[in-house]
């Protein structure tokens, strides 16, 4: 047997779960958000790059997208921040019944948003094959839809998980809290895209 090494401190009393930047999950979510935000920023850059080639936006004779579906979508996704914040707070208070309820609310909202998104694709008044303008607005809408879909799937799985005995584990509350954080990112990135898709073509000459 070797002699015992010198120990400065015993770590047994160090906790095993925490929220926010103390947790590893948070850093993972932030890193993926950085990657995706860069992707959005570059796609938006491409939008302006292509816009600079046109005399009018949308190019003649295309019409801007119809407003209804997109605006309903935007209203709902902004309002979804209310249950989203409640879910985050419930998770941070380890309030399991509330978390269970609110995750189901979020899952339902996600499903409605996906349906509305389908109508949005239908109201763009241009196809992706028509010209570069069409391609880039389809691109932006498509990119954002992948985020809605990913977070929706994530919420479904999490909701299921929280209804098992797993839900009682402290780490699952961290997961819920970070899922809410990600959803904030999803709806915040939507706002500039909404303007670029629906309003800039109305304001631009």
């Amino acid at each position, binding site marked *: *047997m*070797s002699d*015992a*090494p*010198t*120990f*400065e*401190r*015993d*770590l*047994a*009393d*160090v*906790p*095993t*779960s*925490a929220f926010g*930047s*103390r*947790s*590893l999950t948070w*850093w*993972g979510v932030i*890193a*993926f958000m*950085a*990657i*995706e935000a*860069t*992707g959005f920023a*570059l*796609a938006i850059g*491409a939008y302006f*790059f*292509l816009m600079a*080639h*046109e005399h009018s936006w949308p*190019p003649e004779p295309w019409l801007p997208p119809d407003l209804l579906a997109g605006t309903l979508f935007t209203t709902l996704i902004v309002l979804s921040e209310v249950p989203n914040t409640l879910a985050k707070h419930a998770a941070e208070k*380890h309030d399991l019944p509330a978390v269970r309820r609110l995750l189901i609310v979020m899952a339902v909202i996600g499903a409605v948003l996906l349906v509305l998104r389908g109508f949005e694709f239908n109201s763009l008044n241009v196809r*992706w*094959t*028509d*010209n*570069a*303008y*069409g*391609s*880039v607005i*389809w*691109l932006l809408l498509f990119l954002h839809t992948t985020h809605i879909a990913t977070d929706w*799937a994530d919420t479904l*799985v999490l909701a299921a*998980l929280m209804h098992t*005995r*797993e839900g009682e*584990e*402290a*780490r*699952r509350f961290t997961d819920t809290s970070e899922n809410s954080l990600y959803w904030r990112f999803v709806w915040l990135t939507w706002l500039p895209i909404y303007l670029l898709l629906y309003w800039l073509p109305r304001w631009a000459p």
Partner: protein
Amino acid sequence: MSAAELARDGPTLHGPELAARLERSWSRDPGLLGWLATVDHKEIGRRYLVTAFVFLALAGVLALAMRVQLARPDQNIIGAARYNEIFTMHGTTMMFLFAVPVMDAVAIYLIPLMLGTRATSFARLNAFSYYVYLAGGMLLWIAFVLNVGPDVGWFAYVPLSGPEYGVGKRADIWAQMVTFTEVAALSVAVVLTATILKQRAPGMSLDRMPLFAWAILVTSLMVIFSMPSVALASGMLLSDRLVGTQFYNPTENGDALLWQHLFWFFGHPEVYIIFLPAVGFVSEITATFCRRPVFAYPVMVMAVVAIGLLAFGLWVHHMFATGLPRVGYSFYTAASMAVAIPTGIQIFCWITTMWLGRPRFDVPFLYVVAFIVTFVIGGLTGVMVASVPLDLQLHDSYFIVAHFHYVLIGGAVFPLLGAITYWYPKVTGRLMSERLGKLSFWLLFGSFQLTFFPMHLSGMLGMPRRVYTYPAGLGLELPNFLSSIGAFIVALAFVLFIANVFLSLRRGAIAGPNPWKAGGLEWATSSPPPPYNFAHVPSVGSATPLWDGPLKWMSGLRVDEKEMLLTTVVSARPDLREPVPEPSIWPFISALALTVMFVSSIFSPWAVLFGLVPLGVALIAWFWPKQLEPTAEPVIE
């Protein structure tokens, strides 16, 4: 069972008994399934390394083929079309499948050891990234063997790669290979960033972090902010080719220059993504072989950060020949020259370290010297072509081929070979042969100059890059012939290096934990390290803890469960105990599902939709927590 009764390391549990119990918790199942399910960063790092070297060998063979074809004028051993494929495969393989992944490989293996932790963050994501990388490489090379390899150059400019001129599947293969390697590189970047920020040993505040870790942190952030660009660009290329979008089609008001902007917004940082890890190697090796910490640590750190930032302002210098606005020219010329400043400062710091120390000219250090010499030459030609009038002359000539091989081989491959020689004893437990190492070093250094120096001349004499032959009588015979001779000696030197790697596995001198008497934490554990890296948590008080006398430790991590310590971001105070994921087959299956989806999407866009189903299932299985253990700890607030 209460929290107090759980088995933990400490004064009552250490030495062989602790080692045996940790071994039981941390080792994986034997056999193929266990092999595929591993999440041990050391195993994954080794696989990355071996795979990257296989791709280096394949791309190297193609380089030799090109040099055979170009050895003499007017030859027709390789036809024009095949030559296009070969230089495309060489460049693509070297950049996407060798240079970036090989740096990831070393970082994945070493970073947790250097930081004194037991695993990387997100260990399963790490495993997943390897399989995705492997699949992307196999896609490219199987396509090449089946005669559908890409032939559009390593940067696949549109319109050549677009639907109109790039008929067939060749360009699709290229673009989808990019998607694979980006998914892998981004995953690794996330893993490494989180590991470096959250898992440093107690006391290893940011200003005590090894310079290699700084280099990898900045590199990973660069990956995070640059790789989405090429992923987006190649996604748009694929959709132009497969579903008829018009991003790059000028007749529908798309623009081919959009491709160049997006590609080089990634492509220029890419060079530094390859170079900065090498800066880390050089710093570690210099410190150890000069027996003192690198001179002016804060300046070195600032230089690394400055390079990382500046690299994002330079992409336009690849497009000087496209006719940009005047102001653009001046700005990007200035920025391109400015990046020479932090690089120059670093070189100055290393040389000062050598000056102040007592350098020991063992093989790793020889590679450092070769790096400095070669990289300075490559940097000088770089500053030359940063000036627009000269670039317009030399653009697309062999002068450029000479320049970037000086930078890439001198700036990255030499330090890499030095790093492999330096850390080989940590990985294998034995030292590489010094004699064989010196022989292959001198052979490589000499033959490298012989191969690439004459390319400056053939370039200035007017030889364009990417041509399969050249006429006699223009003075191009001699430089080309020398380059070809040199290339074969380079290959011989590599063969000797690899032979040394294999021979030393059996015959090398036993290394012990710290054969070079180095100061970093990776040398505080046995060689090779056990699956759990460290039996206790090391605690550090300087950037070179092993040079400060006996190491101090902290105890109290779980023994029968895989557990590691998280610390605070800046000052690295102990903060949380974090479970480490068990081995799992699901990252492998997820990578497989992703592969099926990506590859079949080349043939039908619907594959994306249908491919999502198996991928989703695999991902859910991956993230679903394992069954609650009876020993799970009560929640501690």
